[in-house]
Structures are given as structure tokens and as C-alpha cells.
């Protein structure tokens, strides 16, 4: 049966039998780096194409349909164009920070990938505080955005960066509380433990209504954290031209664009791990035959299926809801989501103590 675990084990044992441990470790690092960059490139191509097709479907259009089969090579052509374009640096910009900002955003997105289990026993770094690590590192992307906005020396960029900062800092709270409610049920911050605790059912089913509430809050908060519509005030085209990346062109713009899609993938995979069981197949109680059939589907397929379902959900939001105003955005967070998620966390703690879950 196909499994990523087998491939990694084979590579690991071959490297360790051929080279001495230090060189084997270095080669493993190099392989991981190449895999991560490859994953980023593929994700960028696939997700941009998916977004355009989904939006076309929502608006009863055709979408890209010229390059390749049904337009599937369209993003490849766009990437080629972006690579060939000249990267302009505006006059009066802080050149060093201006060039650094897209890389900071990108590197932060790469760092979050470290503790994510993509399949059974297929994980780069099983840190014992995985959930906290993810929340901590994802809050750092705001630094890159502020750098980009400020160093462009453009008032639209600065306004976009400020909005994005306010938005990320405030929505982080309810996303964190939603994540904590699952941590309370699991009793561990390690992502592999959280996935293993969903052996006999996913938390969204096992945790009753509080789990569903925190799932909804989590999805709303991460949509805001990734600056996606209806919360895309940071780059509101009608008011700020393009927000914090107004002055960026060519490959630097492409990096911001790629980071947005990679961030969507990452937050969706965190959502899938916490609420939908990560790579765990869909099991129902003690229906032996049914569970056995589900086990035959490889764990990586389960993981990516769930993640792409959540990504589709977030794209669906983008093409159906109108954009919020900044005061509505902050009201939604501070007056509704935060009190609800605090109360929900209390409820969840009560449930965990009394054992009112399956």
C-alpha cells in the first residue's frame, strides 16, 4: 500500500547506512528544504488556478481556459511573466527593508510548515508545543507586512499595513481561544497527540456543539488573519489601490501573492488537524467493516482532501460576501467573537472535566 512513511523510512535507513550520521543529517536537511520549496511552488500554482476556477464557477463564467488543458497551465504562464518583469523600487523607499519584506513574509510561512503532520508519521519536527509554535510564528507575518507598508514610502501602503496589523493582532485572539478549546479536550499541545486522540472520531463530532462553535470561530478568524475577503481591508482595491503591496512589482509581488496562498493552505491544515482529524480516516464507532474500508485510503489523501475542502470553503466566502468596513470588522471581533469564544472555552473546560464527550 502506498504510504509516505515507507518512503521516508527507506531514505533514512539508506542514508545512514551509506554516510556517517552528520553527513546523513545534512543531506536530510537538504532534502527537506527542496521538498518544502517544491511544495510551495506546487501549492502556488494549484491554489491560484483553483481560486480562478472557483470564482468563475461562482459567477457563472468560464475562467482561464486557453493555456493547457482547460486552462490548467494559466498560472504557469503568469508566473513566467512575473519572473521576467522588472522589479521596481520607488524613489525614497527604504531599499533594504523594501527588498527584505517579501522574504520575511515567505520565510514565516515556511517556518509554520515545520510541525504539520502531512500523513501518518510524516512530519518534519514533532515539537512538544506544536500548537503554540504555530500561533506564535503565524503572528510574525504582520512584521513583514508592516515592513513592506512602511518602507514603500507611500501613504496607501502604510494605511494598508496598519489595517492589516490591527486586524491580525485582534483576530489572533479568537483564533487562539478556538485552538485552546481543542487543546483542553486533548490535554496536549503536540500536534501528533492531537491527531492520535481523534482515532475513534473527529473532534468536531466528538465535542458536540461547543466544538462546532469553536470551528466556526476558527474559520472566521483565520480568514481575517490571512487578509482574505470579506476581511481584505488591507488591500481594499477600491480605497487603497492594493494596500501594503501597492509599490511591489515582478517577482517580489509574486512572493507576496504566493505567501497569501501558502498561508491559506497552512491555516486550513491547522483547522483540519484540530477539528477534522488531520490524516485520520473517517471512522464510525465500532463498525469494523466500514472502518477497515476507510483505512485503505492512504493517510496523505485524507489530509489533503480535508485541507482542500476547507480551502474551498474559504474561497467560497471570498466570492459570496461583500467586504466589511473597518469599524464593522473590529466590532465583530471585540464585541461578538471574543466574548463568544471565551464563554465557549469555559463550556469546553466544563465538558472536559465532566467527561461529557465521546
Amino acid at each position, binding site marked *: 500500500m502506498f504510504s509516505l512513511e515507507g518512503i521516508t523510512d527507506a531514505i533514512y535507513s539508506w542514508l545512514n547506512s551509506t554516510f556517517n550520521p552528520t553527513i546523513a543529517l545534512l543531506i536530510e536537511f537538504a532534502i527537506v528544504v527542496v521538498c518544502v520549496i517544491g511544495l510551495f511552488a506546487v501549492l502556488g500554482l494549484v491554489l491560484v488556478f483553483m481560486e480562478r476556477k472557483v470564482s468563475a464557477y461562482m459567477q457563472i463564467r468560464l475562467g482561464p481556459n486557453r493555456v493547457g488543458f482547460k486552462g490548467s497551465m494559466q498560472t504557469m504562464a503568469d508566473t513566467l511573466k512575473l519572473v521576467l518583469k522588472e522589479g521596481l523600487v520607488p524613489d525614497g523607499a*527604504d531599499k533594504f527593508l523594501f527588498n527584505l519584506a517579501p522574504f520575511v513574509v515567505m520565510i514565516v510561512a515556511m517556518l509554520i510548515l515545520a510541525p504539520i503532520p502531512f500523513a501518518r508519521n510524516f512530519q518534519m519536527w514533532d515539537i512538544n508545543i506544536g500548537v503554540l509554535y504555530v500561533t*506564535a510564528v503565524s503572528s510574525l507575518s504582520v512584521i513583514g507586512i508592516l515592513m513592506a507598508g512602511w518602507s514603500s514610502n507611500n501613504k496607501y501602503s502604510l494605511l494598508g499595513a496598519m489595517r492589516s496589523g490591527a486586524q491580525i493582532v485582534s483576530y489572533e485572539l479568537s483564533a487562539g481561544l478556538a485552538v485552546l478549546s481543542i487543546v483542553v479536550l486533548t490535554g496536549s499541545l503536540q500536534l501528533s497527540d492531537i491527531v492520535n486522540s481523534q482515532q475513534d472520531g473527529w473532534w468536531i463530532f466528538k465535542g458536540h456543539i461547543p466544538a462546532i462553535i469553536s470551528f466556526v470561530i476558527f474559520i472566521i478568524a483565520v480568514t481575517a488573519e490571512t487578509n482574505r475577503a470579506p476581511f481584505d481591508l488591507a488591500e481594499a482595491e477600491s480605497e487603497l489601490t492594493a494596500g501594503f503591496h501597492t509599490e511591489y512589482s515582478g517577482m517580489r509581488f509574486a512572493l507576496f501573492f504566493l505567501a497569501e496562498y501558502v498561508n491559506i493552505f497552512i491555516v486550513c491544515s491547522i483547522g483540519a488537524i484540530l477539528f477534522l482529524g488531520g490524516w485520520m480516516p473517517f471512522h464510525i464507532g465500532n463498525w469494523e467493516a466500514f472502518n477497515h474500508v476507510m483505512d485503505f485510503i492512504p493517510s496523505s489523501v485524507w489530509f489533503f482532501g480535508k485541507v482542500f475542502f476547507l480551502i474551498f470553503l474559504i474561497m467560497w466566502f471570498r466570492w459570496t460576501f461583500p467586504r466589511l468596513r473597518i469599524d464593522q470588522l473590529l466590532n465583530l471581533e471585540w464585541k461578538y467573537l471574543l466574548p463568544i469564544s471565551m464563554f465557549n472555552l469555559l463550556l469546553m473546560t466544563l465538558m472536559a472535566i465532566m467527561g461529557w464527550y465521546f
Partner: protein
Amino acid sequence: MSTSEILFWFLSVLALFSAIMVLVSKNPIHSVLWLIVVFFAISGHYLLLNAQFLAIVNIIVYAGAIMVLFLFVIMLMNLNKETEPSRNIWMKFSGVISGGLLLWIFVSATRSAGEIVGKTAMIKEGSIGLIENLGKVLFTQYALPFEISSVLFLSAMVGAVVIGKKQ
């Protein structure tokens, strides 16, 4: 040298260099960004001491929240080299003297601390920095200071709400 030693020296040099750059940079935004690098290097030291939780909390609280607020304020004030006020010579002189005295106290306190003389830090062992042990200690041995500091934060929150309501 082992890997952890190389990492230790790298992180220490990085932390000291960026701390110096915080002071030397003319542009306040660059100072804040260098300060973020300092926090990262210190978090790396926590990781070497097997205190993952402290490392992550250091990043969340300092690099993630406080430094972002700093950046906000400084970017909105639009401070430049031109707007920096010129300080007179006596201000600089008194600054150097008070800073030097503080350094002197730190150095002498470290030198007179008999407990740590001749001991090396435990690298990659010790479990006090892990979240479970830290939580147990905070809620048993240090329960009272912990609760008092939470009251302090609560009062700061109430104060912020009062200031916000004024207009």
C-alpha cells in the same frame, strides 16, 4: 565543537551584534527591527536549554505583540533623522555615567554570585521549561505572585478601556 556549541556561539554573537545595532541605528524603525532579531536569538538560547515553552512565549509576547505595537507607534509618528532633537552635552554625559553605573552593578552582582561560579548550563536537558512543569510550579509554589500579576494586567486593561471611553 559540537553542534550545540556552534549554535550557542552563533546565537550569542547574533544577540550581541543586534543589541549593539539597536543602539547604533539612526532610524528608529531599524532599531525596532534589530530588537526583534535580539528576541529571536534569545528564544534560540531558550531552545538550547530545553525550555521550548519559554522560547515560544518570548516570541509571542515580545516579537509578536509588543514589538508590533512599537512598530505601529513609531511608523505613525514618522520619526526621521531630520526630526530627531539635538541633545545637549550634559544630557549625554549624565546618560553615560548612569548607564556605566548600572553596568558596574550588574557585573559585580554576577561576579559575587557564588552559586553559579564554575558551573555550565545544562544543554538539552532539564525539564523546568516544559509547559507541564512550569504550570505546576506556577499554580502551587508561586500561586500568589501569579495571581497578583494577573490582577495587575486586569487593572491595565480596565485603565485602557477607561481611556478609550473618555472621548
